[in-house]
C-alpha cells in the first residue's frame, strides 16, 4: 500500500483469541497488504483465552481505517482499536549492557538516575541497565551511554493503553477485553 504524505506513526490495540497461528495470521496480513509494522507486542490478558496485541504502524488515516477493517476480517481477531490521538500511555522496555568497570560505574549510575533507569546486574566489566519509557527516552539514554561502549541491548515492542475509565462503548471498544464465554456469532 502506497503511503500517503500524511503518514504518521499510529498505535493499534487488538484483542485476539489465544490460539496457535493467530500471530502468523496477523503478521501475514500486514506483509501481504504492505502495511509497515514498526513494532509489535503480544501477551496474555487477565481474560483466559484472550491475548492483547499492540502494534505501531506507519500509516495515513485512510490506510489506518483499512488496517482496522482488514484485521476485523480475521476470524480470530476479537476487536481492534486505533488509539492514535487518544490520551494514552505507550511504553517500551529496554535492557542495555554497558562496558563499564569500577572506575566509571558511578558516573553511569548517575546518568541512569536522571533517566529513572535502574541497574539490574553488575559484573566486573559490565553493567545492565533497565529502562521503561517511550522510544525517545530510550534513544536519549542510548545516546549518553554510547561513549562508554554498549556491549548489547534488547528492546521490547511497544505496549499501549488508553487513559481513564474503561469500557466507554462509543470510543473505547477495545478497552474491555471481550469475554469469550459471552459471545456467540450465529
Amino acid at each position, binding site marked *: 500500500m502506497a503511503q500517503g504524505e500524511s503518514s504518521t506513526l499510529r498505535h493499534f490495540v487488538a484483542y*485476539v*483469541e489465544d490460539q496457535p*497461528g493467530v500471530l*502468523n*495470521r496477523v503478521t*501475514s496480513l500486514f506483509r*501481504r497488504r504492505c502495511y509497515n509494522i514498526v513494532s509489535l507486542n503480544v501477551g496474555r490478558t487477565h481474560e483466559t483465552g484472550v491475548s492483547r496485541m499492540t502494534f505501531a504502524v506507519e500509516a495515513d488515516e*485512510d490506510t489506518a*481505517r*483499512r488496517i482496522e*477493517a*482488514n484485521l*476485523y*476480517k*480475521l*476470524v*480470530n*481477531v*476479537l*476487536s481492534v482499536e486505533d488509539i492514535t490521538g487518544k490520551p494514552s500511555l505507550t511504553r517500551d522496555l529496554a535492557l542495555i549492557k554497558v562496558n563499564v568497570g569500577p572506575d566509571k560505574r558511578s558516573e553511569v549510575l548517575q546518568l541512569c538516575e536522571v533517566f529513572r533507569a535502574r541497574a539490574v546486574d553488575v559484573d566486573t566489566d559490565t553493567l545492565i541497565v533497565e529502562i521503561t519509557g517511550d522510544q525517545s527516552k530510550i534513544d536519549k539514554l542510548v545516546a549518553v551511554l554510547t561513549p562508554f561502549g554498549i556491549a548489547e541491548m534488547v528492546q521490547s515492542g511497544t505496549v499501549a493503553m488508553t487513559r481513564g475509565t474503561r469500557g466507554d462503548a462509543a470510543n473505547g471498544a477495545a478497552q474491555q477485553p*471481550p469475554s*469469550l464465554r459471552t*459471545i*456467540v*456469532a*450465529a
Partner: protein
Amino acid sequence: MASPMKSMTEPRATPMATDTESRVETLTGSQIIWDTLVHQGVSVVFGYPGGAIMPAYDAMPGYPIRHVLVRHEQGAAHMADGYARASGGVGVCIATSGPGATNLVTGIANAMMDSIPMVCITGQVSSTVIGSDAFQEVDFTGVTLPITKHNILVTRTQDIMPAIRQAFYIASSGRPGPVVVDITKDAQQGSCEHRYDTSPIRLPGYRPEHHPVPAEIAEAAALIAAAKRPIIFCGHGIIEANATGLLLEFVQKTSFPVALTLLGLGGFPATHPLSLGMMGMHGEAWVNTAIQEADLIIAMGMRFDDRVTGNLKTYAQNAKKIHIELDPAEINKNVKVDLPLVGDVREILRMLLPQVAKRNCDVWNSHITELKGDSAVREIQSLPDNGSLFAAHVIHDLWRYTQGKALVVTDVGQHQMWEAQYYKHDHPRKLLTSGGAGTMGFALPAAMGARMACPDDEIWVVVGDGGFQMTACELATCAQEDIKVNIAIINNGFLGMVRQWQQFFYGGRYVATPIKSPDFVKLADAHGLKGLRVTKREEVKAAVEAARSFKETCIIDFRVEQEDSVYPMVPAGADLDKMIRRPVPVGAISELPSEEAPGEAQKDVPPHNPIFETGKDH
C-alpha cells in the same frame, strides 16, 4: 451446499432442518466428515484420492454424495467454484496432502479473488509426524493463509464436525470466500461419539454483517435526488446478494443508466434499454465516457478494480460517489468515495427504494444514446470480408442460436472479452468467468461444476486454444462421469490477449505467443466425445445445433482470424476515456448504417442500439 432447487432467498449453508433421527453414535473421523457434509446439504464433491485422505475416501460409499473424480486437483477446485457460482451454494472439493493439496492452490486463489464460497477438504499427515517433513507433508494452512477467507487445521477426531460446520458458515456468510479444512490422517482414523450439532456456531471474532444507519440512507437519497448525470455500477455483489430484482426496481423508479463490471454481467438485464454494458478496460466507449462525465456514481457490490478504473488520478473526477459494499476493507481502497454504505446491497436497496422519488433522466440518457453513435463495437460490421471467421461473429451467433439463454463459462483472454461484449446476459449466474485472478484453465472444469448445479441448462464453454490446454485433461472426466457441456474453442493460434499487448505495446514482437495445438477434433474423438471444426461463418449454426444434439460433450474448434484484437481498449493505467479504437478499414465507413442518408430514419425503427448491431445476421 444445498441443491440448486432451493430457493435463492434462503440463507446459504443452513444445516438441514431438524434431524429427528440424529442420535449419538460412535463414528470414525472419516465417517464424521461425510455425515457433516450430508448435513450441510452437500450432494456432490469434486476430488482426487491419495494417502493422507484415503481413510475419508474409504468411508465415502454409503453416504448420499456423488464424487466426481477429476484428472488434476486444480480441476476439482474450479469445479467446486463453478458449482458455487451457478448454484449460489457452497462448492466442495477434496484432495490429499502435499502435492494433491498444492494442486488446489490456483483454484483456491481464484475463488478468493472473486469471493466464491467454497470448502476444500484436504488430508494431512498424521499429527504425530507434522513438522517432520514426513512423506507428502506440506504446511497447507500456511500455504493457503493469504488465499483463503479462513483455514483450519484439524488434528483431533472430535474437532472435525465443528471445523466443517464453521467452514461452511464462514465460506457462505458475509463476503463469501474459500475455506480450507486440513484434516490429519490420524484424526480421520480415530473414533469418537458423534451427533450432528445444530446449535449456533460460536465464533466470537467473526461478525460478517454490517448495517448502514438510516441517516446514511437519507444522505444517499438526497444525492440521488440532486443528480443530473447519474450512473449505477452493477457489480458481482448484486448477484451474490440476490439483489437483481431490487436493482431492476430501483432503475425502473429512477431511470438511472447501469454500467456493469465483468463479474456483474447478468446482474442487470443486458437487453434492458438502460443497460449500458460492460465498463472498464474493454468496456464500450460510451460507457467509459459516460462514467467520466457522470455527476453521481452509485457503485453496488464492486471494488473499483484497476481493470475498471484505469488511471485513478483522472477517474470520474466530476462524480460524487456512493459505494454500497459489504466489506468495509474495500471502502476508499482504490477510489475515494463520498458516501460509503456498508452492508448487504439487498438490504440497502430495500431501505433506499422508498426514499427515492420516481423521476426521469431523459436529458442524460439521450446524451448517452448520442455517445453510442460513436460506437466501437458496431465497427465489427466493417471487419474485412476476407472469408475469415471472426470470434465476435461466433459469439454473436452463439447468443442468437441459444436465444441468449445458455449458461456460458468463459476462460481468460480475448475470447473472454468478446464473450462479455457480444453475448448479452439477461439473467444472473448465467455467465461464469474468472475475473479477479484471470485464471486460464478455469472454463472447462468450472462448467463441469456448473453442470452439477444446473442439470437442465444448456452450458457453453467459451475458451481459447491456450487456456483450453491448461485443463483439457478434464475431458476424460467428462467422458467417465457423463458430464455434458458444449465447448467452443476460439482457436486463433495465439495466446491472443498477450499477442494483442505485444502488438500494441511491445513493438509487435510476438515472443512466446504463437501456440500450436493438437487436433481438437481428434482429441475429442480420442476421449469418445464429439468434435467439429468450423472455419466459415455460415457453418456456425449447423455446428451449434449439432453440438447441442449430442448427448456427449462436444468440442467445436472455431478457426478464427488469428491476429484480431479486442476493441476498444483502455491501456493499463491510462485515462478511462483514452481508448484504442478498432482501425476502420478504408472504404468500410460508407457501409455503416449511421452513414445512411439523413431523414431516412423511420419512426417505427427502434432507436439505435449498437450492442445489437453486431454484423449481418444470416
